[in-house]
């Protein structure tokens, strides 16, 4: 299967790059590596919207190319090298699993700029960027806690990496703050994109009495199942209300366009350097979709207030007192988690049942 994916990636590479091969030397070339298909309508789709925003902003002065459905691991290195060799100026690698491949390939191509999404390893020519999705998770966690009647919230998680763990913790703290009886049921599916498995996970959770579903996987499968079974869910990465007009309460929206436009602009001016960008609701990298009218007015008001407080920096989702799952103190009263700890977060907060896989 890996083999075919490589072939497919290589073939797609040829197609994606053929258009730019004989162009003038002038335009800046930006390449994107996607983990799923653009048509996932989730994570990868939002990155591609960002790519299109770059094209719209700079027109003829930029050329973009992309390769979709690139498996994380060794195959990714091959695709990146090929892209770097083809004369691309900057490569955006848009999945956590591309971290080591990006570092390896960047060492071979010191003249090419790389930007890796959601990772924590940087180099002279490797920048990192991510969005503070946990801020969005805090908002939807609050809504979930207020909306659940069974007090059971289901969470479809992909891989036990800090990014996902942050989301679970943040959503739980928010839900707990409005509903002390709330209980989280986390199911790990070990994939970013497998609609069948995501649907099965949603069904298994609903079977256990869950009436609000959150997800950290990329397809709208869980939303479809929620709609069918009459429970609530939240869109992931993009507005998924088309798949669940009654089920979707709101959605966390990823907005990569401004970052991509800024970075490609920096390449044009020659001011690009390795940076670490981690923006949230305040900077507009994370957005919240319009609320469903299923959410009562007072809950909507609370959520709107939370969004404003997070945007202004007044509220940080990880503000003490917070204990770790084992009961030891993590953050003292009033203490705010620093970015370093959050970037490597590998434990559940107190109150979440179940063991965090490692």
């Amino acid at each position: 299967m890996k083999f075919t994916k490589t072939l497919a990636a290589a073939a797609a590479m040829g197609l994606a790059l053929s258009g730019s091969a004989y162009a003038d030397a002038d335009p800046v070339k930006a390449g994107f590596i996607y983990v799923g298909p653009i048509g996932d309508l989730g994570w990868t789709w939002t990155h591609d919207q960002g790519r299109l925003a770059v094209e719209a902003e700079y027109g003829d002065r930029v050329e973009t190319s992309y390769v979709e459905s690139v498996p994380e691991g060794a195959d990714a290195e091959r695709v990146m090298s090929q892209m770097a060799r083809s004369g691309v100026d900057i490569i955006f690698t848009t999945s956590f699993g591309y971290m080591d491949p990006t570092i390896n390939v960047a060492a071979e191509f010191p003249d090419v700029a790389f930007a890796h999404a959601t990772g924590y390893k940087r180099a002279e020519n490797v920048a990192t960027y991510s969005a503070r999705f946990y801020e969005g998770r805090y908002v939807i966690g609050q809504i979930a806690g207020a909306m659940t009647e069974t007090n059971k919230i289901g969470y479809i998680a992909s891989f036990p990496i800090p990014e996902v763990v942050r989301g679970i913790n943040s959503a739980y703290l928010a839900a707990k703050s409005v509903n002390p009886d709330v209980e989280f049921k986390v199911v790990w599916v070990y994939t970013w994109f497998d609609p069948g498995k995501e649907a099965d996970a949603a069904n298994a959770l609903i079977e256990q009495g869950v009436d609000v579903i959150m997800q950290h996987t990329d397809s709208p499968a869980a939303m479809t199942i929620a709609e069918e079974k009459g429970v609530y869910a939240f869109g992931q990465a993009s507005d998924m209300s088309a798949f669940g007009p009654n089920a979707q309460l709101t959605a966390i929206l990823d907005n990569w366009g401004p970052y991509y436009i800024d970075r490609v602009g920096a390449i044009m001016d020659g001011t690009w350097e390795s940076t670490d960008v981690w923006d949230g609701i305040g900077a507009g990298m994370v957005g919240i979709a319009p609320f469903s009218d299923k959410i009562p007015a007072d809950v909507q008001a609370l959520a709107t207030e939370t969004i404003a407080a997070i945007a202004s920096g007044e509220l940080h989702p990880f503000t003490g007192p917070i204990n770790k799952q084992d009961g030891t103190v993590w953050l003292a009263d009033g203490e705010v988690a620093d970015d370093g700890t959050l970037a490597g977060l590998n434990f559940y907060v107190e109150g979440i049942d179940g063991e965090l896989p490692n």
Partner: protein
Amino acid sequence: MDFSSLNAVAMIVLLIGAATPILLAAIGELVAEKSGVLNLGVEGMMIIGAVTGFITATTTGSPMLGFAGGALGGALVSTLFAFLTQYLHSNQVATGLALTMFGLGLAALMGRNYNGIKPPRTDRLEVPGLSDFPVLGELLFSYDPIIYFSVFLVFAVWWFLNRTRGGLVLRACGENHDAAHSLGYNVQLIRFGAIMFGGACAGLGGAYVSLVRVPQWTEGMTAGVGWIALAIVVFASWKPWRVILGAYMFGGITILQLSLQALGISISGAYLSMTPYIVTIVVLVIMSADRKRASINAPACLGRSFHASH
């Protein structure tokens, strides 16, 4: 550990739904392989079936026509493979892989305008009186027609292969194509038909994914089910009944591990996610350890191209 809230009946209903696409694709591939053709394009035919089935169902408003459209789409795309391998004698492994890539790309293109659309609902087959019967009613009479059809199809394939003259001829093509040819049978044509049957089954399985299991169209939504179907055929040692066993076991372990996690039982999810694959590998190792048996079961001419030289 508290297993009391684990609803066995609901889990069985879920697992059968998860296993049916695998079952349909695997039984079709079994027939193709019995005729001596190794078609690695199952995944490609499934995704084509998923998209053509979805398009047909949403355009006509009828899920049943959708399933027919899925089967037709799978069969049509398989003729490409059949023509290349049977009449142009291309390598079956390479052509099959190419078919998978072609199918994934073509399906993405065809499905462009079908994102975010809801397909018509596939109703369960209600048997008056029986479906409401506690436990048994839910276990036996709460499924959609395709699930019953898939089990019937396994029976029909078994009956055809083992109890009819046509089945004997098809198996002869797979065991010794020269002998079948010298008896006057058109090996290429028979294989062509077997490939198309495999394509139709894979397409139907794909349509089941996009119309029932996850009622939506998303690019690449079959996500490797076709490859599992290929493994199930070997797992079943080319016996139709064991295909059911293999598919339900695979579906069962997948559902069980998700349900246990939803219950909050702390068995590392990573291991549980691996289990279906590990069990498949273990069974394959056990089976292939007995060489004689393995070689009796595999069609002797599997994957070999037939060229009539006289």
